[in-house]
């Protein structure tokens, strides 16, 4: 009953904003931020997306600003398109 310790080999994750600094990282471009948010609207951890700490802090700040300005929703349950679907 020995289980071989399978070594989990993740593909090398890299910080997208370090690789390509031109990507606009601010609340005015929610389509960029949406890659770092789950479909329920939660911010994805940097250990999963591989972003570095500096940019992860920036992402968090910008996502919270975008949420405040209704450019991104806080949770999917109250998002406009979900409400529209439920009304049909």
């Amino acid at each position, binding site marked *: 009953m020995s289980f071989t310790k399978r070594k989990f080999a993740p593909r090398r994750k890299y910080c997208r904003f370090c690789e390509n600094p031109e990507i606009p990282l601010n609340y005015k471009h929610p389509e960029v931020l949406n890659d770092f948010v789950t479909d329920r609207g939660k911010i994805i951890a940097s250990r999963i997306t591989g972003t570095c700490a500096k940019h992860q802090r920036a992402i968090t700040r910008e996502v919270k600003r975008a949420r*405040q*300005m*209704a450019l991104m929703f806080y949770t999917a349950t109250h998002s406009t398109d979900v409400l529209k679907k439920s009304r049909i």
Partner: protein
Amino acid sequence: MMTRYEELLLMSPELGTDECHEIVNNLSAIIEREGGSIIKIDDWGVKDTAYPVRKFNRGHYVRMEMNLPTEAVAEFERNVRITDGIFKFITVRLPKIAEEA
């Protein structure tokens, strides 16, 4: 001491273009009065909001970029809060662009 700010305004979609211009002009007048200056105003038009804001699923976004003395921001925001056409607003300090020589 002048600092560069960016102000994003979320206004009611029912505002006609003239009311919207009137609000923006009022705010620009306030900025001038406070000794600031407008760099740019771009109007994103009426967009769908991610969640209903005051029972509206759409909102009129206007972005104002301006130079403002730091102590005048509170006064400016007080005026924005008074204006009833504006639902949400956010003031963001922009990094100082390298002063042209």
